[in-house]
């Protein structure tokens, strides 16, 4: 093979290939997610799916009700965004538009897997066109499909998406994944309470922190109530109490 070809220097600035066949801009987008100092976790149980993320209010003057990383995309599909919050809002808005268009065109609500695919395909376009950079966010998407049951997907800046039994994103992603792999090794059948417990415990364990109900956000869908909803502070407190009592 010839000596290392001159890359014209732009392979780090826009999404063209580097000599090794890598896309630096996409890799840097992933870095932006780890730098966000937030970690989110998603867990799929037997008949429910749960997403949990940290709620950090850096300044006492901020209105805490406006600080959120959990978003509803359709009545039945929700997501947690990890990374640059501005990019997150852009992607959420787009996802909502796609979902609404689907509902208008086809007469029924878009299933979680199709919305995840649509978001991932849009992310792929940003990795191939020079005029737009990849977004610095990972979207963990949950929904309840009446044919396939609870669904959990993650869409990343590379345009990659896949279904998960459990996943994580953000600063402590790898530690969370290790923790989840261990706990799910025996392929246990998780009830709704167990699913929430596992998600919250994973976050507590990797961040070495005991949360107060106001320090985390939780989003759920269950078979009995397939509408996506975020738990109130009181409900979160209930679950935290149960976890404490278990110890």
């Amino acid at each position: 093979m010839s000596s290392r070809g001159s890359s014209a220097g732009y392979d780090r600035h826009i999404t063209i290939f580097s000599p090794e066949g890598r896309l630096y801009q996409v890799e840097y987008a992933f870095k932006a997610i780890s730098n966000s100092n937030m970690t989110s976790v998603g867990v799929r149980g037997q008949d429910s799916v749960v997403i949990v993320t940290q709620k950090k209010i850096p300044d006492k003057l901020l209105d805490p009700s406006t600080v959120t990383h959990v978003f509803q995309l359709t009545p039945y599909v929700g997501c947690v965004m990890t990374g640059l919050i501005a990019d997150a809002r852009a992607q959420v808005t787009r996802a909502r538009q796609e979902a609404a268009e689907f509902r208008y065109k086809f007469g029924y609500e878009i299933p979680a897997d199709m919305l995840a695919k649509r978001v991932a395909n849009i992310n792929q376009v940003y990795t191939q066109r020079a005029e737009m950079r990849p977004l610095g966010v990972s979207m963990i998407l949950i929904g309840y499909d009446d044919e396939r049951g609870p669904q959990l997907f993650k869409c990343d800046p590379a345009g990659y998406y896949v279904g998960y039994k459990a996943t994580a994103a953000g600063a402590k992603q790898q530690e969370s994944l290790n923790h989840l792999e261990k706990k799910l090794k025996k392929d246990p059948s998780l009830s709704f309470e167990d699913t929430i417990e596992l998600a919250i415990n994973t976050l507590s364990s990797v961040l070495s922190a005991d949360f107060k109900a106001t320090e985390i956000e939780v989003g759920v869908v269950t078979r009995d109530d397939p509408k996506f909803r975020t738990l109130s502070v009181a409900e979160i407190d209930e679950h935290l109490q149960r976890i404490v009592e278990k110890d």
Partner: protein
Amino acid sequence: MSDRYSFSLTTFSPTGKLVQIEYALNAVAQGVTSIGIKATNGVVIATEKKTASPLIDDSSLEKVANVCPNIGIVYSGMGPDFRVLLSRARKAAQKYKRVYNEYPPTNILVKEVASVMQEFTQRGGVRPFGVSLLIAGYDDNTGPALYQVDPSGSYWAWKASAIGKNMVNAKTFLEKRYNEEMELEDAVHTSILTLKEGFEGQMTENSIEIGIIGG
């Protein structure tokens, strides 16, 4: 939203090479190995389905895909880029059917896909696709066919081929094992053996994907 770059990003180097295409081929060479074998009565395509974590739900990942009832496709390289090409291939097949009321012969569809890939090596503001494709099809006129399409947009018909990480060893293995009288059953068996050659770890029914046409 997009003010298009009006100039191509894939340009000739002083030595007359299109380096972006070569780099794209490097991206393919880092991808998981895929195999294709043409038999007398059909074609088989197969790939490794290595998921990075046991937490991944591997039933949600589709690497060997259907383009239309007589054509299947598998890739090595960047998954997201493959999804785009798969969409285009499916659309092209349906467009053909609308005009001629039958699904396209394999070589016609391959031409379509290849011309899309070529477009992205010349058009302004885009990079080439980071995938190589193995397209397998069967039609009544020409029988079984196996094509490989590269990021440059060039394509060849093969009797048996491999793309991705382990392609050199796999092709050597195939050269030894291939014979013109092979039937589909033998071809499937050979493709599994070929994948096994380069497989790291335990190969189970969940860690490979196989597609067949014909038989």
